């Protein structure tokens, strides 16, 4: 499903060059639930961003669902992000000026989906995360756990094949964290969604099928 071949990422400023990813090779199977672990600054989020087409690798080859990502223009990358990928961020990254329903239907806005269909799909996914009664609320009116569930609903509404979660429980207490983790696990099992999760938490990582460790931008065993 996802192939990373000799992926490197270098951040350059005027004076400093930082190697964030160093020759990463990785293959992730369809419907796999994989976690990436490592200390802060080891390149976990960078790797997730490269897989999610939110950042370009400096070197190497990325293949998503059989498509080699190389020199794609903005429109093509946007379409791939929209159709194949879903994101869950540590800080939720909901849009404060949109209510729950509008936040969730965001990915559908960039597809040719009728307003009626959008509402229906949004309803379904909000039902799944247990927040259909909050659909008219704004993010500022929700708890952290509820915000993250909205973020998960937004990631899922477009039925992506790959879900990328960057420390999805990092800002939640353990009970809410468990809720979110259970939600991700059930999605993986029931819908066969491929999930790549970045985490610091060994306990959470142990609930996934495979753990990748990164250290100073390199994959370690």
């Amino acid at each position, binding site marked *: 499903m996802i192939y990373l071949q000799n992926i490197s990422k270098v951040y350059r400023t005027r004076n400093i060059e930082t190697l964030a990813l160093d020759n990463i090779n990785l293959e992730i199977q369809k419907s796999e639930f994989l976690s990436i672990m490592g200390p802060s600054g080891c390149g976990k*989020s*960078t790797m997730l*961003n490269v897989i*999610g087409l*939110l*950042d*370009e690798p400096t070197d190497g080859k990325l293949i998503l669902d059989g498509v080699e990502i190389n020199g794609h223009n*903005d*429109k093509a990358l*946007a*379409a791939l*992000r*929209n*159709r194949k990928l879903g*994101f869950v*961020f540590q800080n939720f*990254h*909901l*849009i*404060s*000026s*949109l209510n729950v329903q*509008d936040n969730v239907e*965001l*990915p559908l806005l*960039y*597809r040719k989906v009728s307003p009626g269909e959008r509402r229906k799909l949004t309803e379904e996914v909000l039902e799944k995360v247990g927040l259909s009664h909050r659909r008219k609320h*704004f993010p500022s009116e929700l708890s952290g756990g509820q915000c993250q569930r909205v973020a998960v609903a*937004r990631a899922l509404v*477009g039925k992506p094949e790959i879900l990328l979660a960057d420390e999805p429980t990092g800002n939640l207490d353990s009970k809410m964290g468990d809720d979110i983790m259970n939600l991700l696990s059930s999605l993986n099992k029931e819908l066969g969604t491929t999930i790549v999760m970045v985490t610091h938490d060994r306990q959470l990582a142990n609930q996934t099928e495979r753990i990748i460790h990164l250290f100073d931008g390199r994959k370690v065993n």
Partner: protein
Amino acid sequence: MKYINFKQIREQLRQNRFFTFLSLFGVSIPVMIVMVMIVKTELYINPGGPEKDNDQMLFLNRTKVRMEEGRVSGFVNLGIIEKYFSEIAPKGSMAFSSSTLTAIFLENEVLDVPVRYTNADFWDVFDFHFVDGSHYNLDNVGNKDNVVVISRNLSRKVFGMQEAVGKTMEVEGGTYRIIGVVEDVTSLAMNAYSEIWMPYTVKSHRMSDPEEIAKAAGGYSVAFRASENWDFDQIKSDVERVRTRLNQINGEDAEIFFGGPAPATENYFRGFRDPETYEGNLMNYLALAGKALMILFLPALNLMSLNLTRIQERSQEIAIRKAFGATRKRMAFQIMGENAVLTILGGLIGLLMAYMVMYFFKDQVFAGFFIRNADQATIQINYVAFLLVMGVSLVFSILSGLIPSLRISRLQPAYVLKGGEL
């Protein structure tokens, strides 16, 4: 329209009140100023009421005489009008009048009322609407009859709900019979406005010495109405012939110049400029348009910096949208679309403010017009001009959104989501 989410715009405006205020303020104030400027100019040029079809008229209200001992200037001398202009103007196509203020004594009040002395053709040249009775005719004028036409407003003040026609009133020590009542006239109609109109013969004593006439300014303004047989060019050349005749009479002693006859637009730009040196309308038009563009452009610069700040604040949102499939183009259109909505909203507020300013501050707005009773000015908003102003504002607003939008196009979502700035 698919790029504009009105619900989100409303929510953003609500959430970020300070920005909303600054943006709307930045758009509405210049729109208001430009609209007041345009409407004021337009009302001067075409005030409506009896002068509503003044595009068929030429006006002459300025005379200058250059003599060895100095120069004389003023309106037009009655002698010139009666002796020379009456010869060239076909019947019903020349109005001349002179205006002053008079006191009308009521039981408990003294009213300062404008009175206009006119010829009989005045009523043919200008389009008055009679509520009751009729106007005076050539015989009334010739016989110096003490008859007047008054406005509905004055009729109400003096006679209340009673019919005024047939009654008499005291004006300037004489007793006058009211023969007609007209619909109130906007005080911006400078060539026709008054509250009392009467034959000019009851007041004026014409000069008879041609030599005196030929080098005299006076107190009358003249309006010529063009017709098929007497078009603008013909009127101008006939008046020029009169001027030549007058200067032949003057010989070496003096030279007379007329500020016209000119259309209302030229008359506005000409103002009290020297008839000798006036050089046409183009520069005046350009100056007016330049002023309007400048007023609309400066806030656009302000809007641009506000946009940059706003986009800085919304960079996370933009990155999120890109993460979920928004293209650069779509985000750029969204930002510019939101700008357009803000501009339209600000423009409508500006239009409302312009109307309120012109309505409540008539005296100040029309201060430079040398008009009497600004409170009797009829304000009409020019919606075509408003659409034009909105068009220019929209162009500026879209341009002001361009630079921020171009910066968005370079945005790497990962960089912003990690907390980086634009």
